């Protein structure tokens, strides 16, 4: 059966649109970070040029705290991911294997409460955090980021654990396993995919987040997005090359990560929201 011409045309148009819309802006920025400054201004943008690391040199010389903020972003994102996954496996397991009215109500609370706008809690947290000397600390950022993803994480893990036959639990229990052993030996290994799916969301969120980082960090725990926003704002006559270099260093690892685990991203989103 031959495909009608209109359908071929539509497909071509959509594919072209997707390439220009999603990929081209990102590629242009990364590519331009290797161009000499006059080359950046060239129109149409050149695809062939002699690459330079000039902007990367300037970045690491003039913004020494950029490396520090990258390290902060990595530490905070990894710790938030670990905390979220552990909390989510435990909660996901209970919601999958136990039933009860109170439990259903707490699941409802879990899903509903995280829909509140994060900015609302910054106002009351600010003085508390200062009083507890937690302002500008890695610990605070890890807690904040985990809090906003334990709900999705628990929903994702519940869905994945639902897929593990309960006969396996029973077999393990008959063999004398305690519930903790059951979790470690059966549930955790068999829900590994769900754990990866949950990790993708927290990690990407924590690595990229701006609002909390902007309000709660100043120096010690400052993250990469905050320092990039300062580069964008503070410069009179923007140094585009520098900005592109910083943006590229920040985005390339996480874009590569998302592409690598895209299968889990899709599985996690559908498990966390549609199937519920």
């Amino acid at each position, binding site marked *: 059966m031959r495909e009608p011409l209109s359908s071929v045309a539509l497909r071509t148009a959509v594919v072209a649109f997707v390439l220009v819309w999603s990929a081209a802006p990102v590629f242009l920025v990364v590519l331009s970070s290797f161009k000499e400054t006059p080359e950046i201004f060239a129109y149409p943008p050149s695809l062939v040029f002699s690459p330079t690391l000039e902007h990367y040199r300037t970045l690491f010389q003039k913004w020494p705290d950029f490396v520090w903020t990258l390290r902060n972003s990595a530490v905070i994102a990894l710790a938030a991911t670990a905390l979220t996954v552990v909390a989510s496996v435990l909660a996901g397991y209970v919601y999958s294997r136990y039933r009860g009215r109170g439990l259903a109500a707490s699941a409802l609370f879990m899903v509903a409460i995280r*829909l509140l706008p994060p900015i609302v809690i910054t106002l009351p947290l600010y003085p508390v955090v200062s009083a507890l000397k937690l302002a500008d600390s890695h610990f605070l950022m890890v807690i904040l980021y985990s809090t906003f993803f334990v709900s999705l994480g628990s929903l994702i893990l519940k869905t994945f654990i639902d897929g593990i036959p309960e006969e396996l639990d029973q077999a393990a229990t008959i063999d004398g396993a305690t519930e903790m052993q059951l979790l470690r030996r059966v549930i955790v290994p068999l829900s590994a995919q769900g754990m990866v799916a949950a990790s993708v969301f927290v990690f990407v969120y924590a690595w990229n987040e701006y609002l909390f980082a902007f309000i709660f960090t100043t120096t010690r725990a400052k993250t990469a997005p905050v320092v990039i926003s300062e580069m964008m704002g503070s410069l009179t006559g923007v140094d585009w090359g520098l900005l592109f270099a910083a943006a590229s260093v920040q985005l390339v690892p996480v874009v590569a990560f998302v592409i690598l685990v895209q299968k889990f991203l899709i599985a996690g989103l559908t498990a966390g929201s549609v199937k519920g």
Partner: protein
Amino acid sequence: MRKFGLPQFAMLLPTQGLLVAIIAVPSAYVLWLSFNESSYGSAPSFVGFANYEAIWNDRYFWRALVNTLVVINIIVYGELLLAFLIAAVFVKGVPFRRLMLAVVLMPYAISEVVAVVIWKYLLDPNVGSLAKAMAGLGLPEIAWATNPTHGLGLVSLISIWLHLPFTFILIYAAMLSVPRELYESARIDGAGGWQSFRHITLPGIMPAVFVALIFRYILAFRLFSEVWLLTSGGPARTTEVLAIYLYKQSFTYASFGKGAATGWVMVMVSGLIAAVYVHLLYRRGFRRDA
């Protein structure tokens, strides 16, 4: 069925503890604060609904509210439309499918800050390729810094760009899960492309569209970073959205009571949207004694 007891409660504790300590208690405090007059160095004093009255009579609040409602509707429906179109084409098969999916998902990995850098650059009249291409076509310059309509338009565009992957995934996954046999039998019964789309695809993906809509309404309602980084609400407070208004009341003008009242307005509006979602989820998920 196993009995829920203390060990199970302990297993829920990390998740529920975080939610209670970091979201529920502070939100309750915000509610209390919204009925008090408070600033740096002065103890809160009860003022009843005065803060709500004050923001009700503040034209900048209304400007922020209207901006928020207009922008989130543009974002949510713009995204839905694009996601729908792309998913409908992808589901029939595209060349290099895995690669193309990666391309669609790419903006999901980009931070709001970098997205603002990217679009500011593209639309900069001196360097931006997009600005130069538009000038070549005789189109006007996007004056996002001085023209509030352009500013909010660009905010919407960046937001759609960042969140299209989310909406796309939900709709694409739903389209993939519509059973192929339904299309087969429709074709045998003589249904055309449009008819099978109208009578099979659409009803099949409606639940997912609904979930995507509600989710995106709630998330778009939080809109802060794109506006803050692009216009900071200017010029002359014309591009503020509710989150920016709240931030300024609380942290710039140190009027905590009014900030809190704004916060509680935001909580109620998103609560209303969330209630619809949770109601549906609850009915389908946790009540069912599977």
